[in-house]
């Protein structure tokens, strides 16, 4: 490299250099890239044990260059508990979608957080079951049409979408809980900072770290990538406001 040439970007070592299987405009790729960059920047890659879940994110183990174990649908927080209890010296990361975490896995996520397990969980909320073809999720917005709510989600029969970040923030064992979006550069930067906090509380053994990422699913929203990105701003953020719902490090600093 000559003096005029300066390396301004390099792929983080935690990220495997392969194309992902995600659809165009899907934001799983952004969320997992942030995770990979943080693992590299925080020097955690070699020390990380990853628990993958069921859904579009199941192939995360092909994209992050870390040791991993695959959990059954919804059970990642229980599997992560087993990993952390067996190897408390390791950094334990899990990554779940909304159907996985907030529906079939509701008991596991609540109790993992409440026990204050020193693990970090990235929760990608795109308001649908992606891999199975766009069925209604617990986070599907009222009126949103899916393959199992063809007339739109009906609040009187199907309830209101669940705000996980707020709920997790209420639990005693939670050290950090925040909701972020990755729909623009500003939000991506904020998301990375918040994700870093969710990782740091584990390193400091302060308890459970939770980060909810609002994300697009253009395929199942029947939208192009740009429209899907606009929907994050216009529909998702008003119902799922961005922000920190618990941060024990802030309380300590006060």
């Amino acid at each position, binding site marked *: 490299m000559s003096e005029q040439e300066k390396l301004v970007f390099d792929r983080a070592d935690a990220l495997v250099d392969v194309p992902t299987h995600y659809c165009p405009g899907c934001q799983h790729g952004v969320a997992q890239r942030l995770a990979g960059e943080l693992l590299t920047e925080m020097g955690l890659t070699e020390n990380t044990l990853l628990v993958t879940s069921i859904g579009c994110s199941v192939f995360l*183990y092909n994209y992050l260059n*870390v*040791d*991993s*174990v695959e*959990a059954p649908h919804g*059970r990642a927080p*229980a599997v992560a508990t087993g990993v952390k*209890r*067996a190897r408390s010296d390791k950094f334990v990361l899990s990554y779940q979608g909304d159907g996985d975490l907030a529906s079939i896995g509701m008991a596991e996520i609540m109790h993992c957080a409440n026990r204050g397990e020193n693990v970090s969980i990235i929760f990608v909320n795109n308001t649908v079951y992606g891999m199975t073809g766009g069925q209604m999720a617990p986070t599907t917005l009222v009126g949103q049409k899916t393959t199992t709510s063809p007339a739109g989600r009906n609040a009187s029969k199907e309830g209101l979408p669940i705000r996980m970040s707020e709920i997790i923030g209420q639990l005693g064992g939670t050290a950090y809980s925040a909701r972020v979006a990755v729909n623009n550069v500003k939000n991506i930067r904020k998301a990375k900072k918040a994700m870093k906090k969710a990782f740091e509380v584990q390193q400091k053994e302060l308890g459970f770290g939770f980060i909810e990422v609002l994300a697009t699913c253009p395929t199942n929203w029947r939208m192009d990538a740009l429209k899907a990105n606009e929907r994050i701003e216009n529909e998702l953020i008003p119902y799922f406001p961005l922000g920190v719902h618990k941060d024990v490090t802030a309380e300590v600093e006060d």
Partner: protein
Amino acid sequence: MTKTGEKLFIKGNEAISRGAIAAGLKCYFGYPITPQNDIPEYMSAALPAAGGEFVQAESEVAAANMLIGAAACGVRSMTSSSSPGISLKQEAISYLAGSELPTVIVNMNRGGPGLGDIGPSQGDYFQSVKGGGHGDYRTLVLAPGTCQEAYDLVIQAFDLAFKYRNPVMILGDAILGQMKEPVITWTPEEKDENEGHGWRIVGAKNRPGRILKSLHLSEGALAKHNLMLKNKYEDMASFTQKEEYQTEDADLIIVAYGSIGRIVKSTIKKLRNEGHKVGLFRPITLYPFPSDDLKKLAEQGKKFLTIEHNLGQMVEDVRLSIRTIADSEFFGFYPGNLPTPDDFEEPILKALGGK
């Protein structure tokens, strides 16, 4: 902490707990259900004292899934439950088998179906030896008949789990779990600290990331995986254990396992004193089933009567083992009642008389 060579008067549940800790158990995940509560209760105090981790999980489902995480790290892990709880664990057991993760699962069988009762039963034979969860898989199943055997077998169970990278099940019942007997403790040799080296997840240092999974989507991958599992199960079949009592000159062989095998043994002792030529064949490994040994007895022209504390489950494996040579009659003592040696006298005499 259990010392080697101590003689203790303890329940089967405690014998299993002490045996597991002696075997180097690191992580136990449990949930309350009768009649196995002595195990999580014992573990909650003794395992942390021995340097291990105890978690009372939010559900049987979660407890079994915690096993996946601990087993993936290559540490010795265990859960225990009773029938309805084991049904809930079957999801994770299928994943453990599919991902080839070694662990030990204890089932203190109670009456079913559904909530049934909290008394003894052998109604879980099928769900234990035929897979139990979804997909083609097998778990090694060990069925102790005494508290001492429970202590010994749980130690062996961990070695087998790691040898075959497969879940191992201890199948007892409410009798074994709740009865007290003298148990002489022992501690196996120090286990290899590098157990699981080569497959366990420890962090990807100077090598690509390692993936422990049961998902195989690429063309031909799942078929290859299933063939590998089939070969492993065939290899496991070389490991069988059984007890034979007075079978040599017997005209009639009673096949019975676990607590029932032991009660039947008392009946056989009484009938022997009265001059009846009857013997006991007690399978200790239910999977793999000791088919070859049964077949040898069948080739000697012996008759068979299978006695179980259910409506007839193991009898199918007995019949398969001796097929084309002999058949087995069946006597089922229905779950919900507690059998005594007297209960088996009439069916045995009837089977003997039918010669």
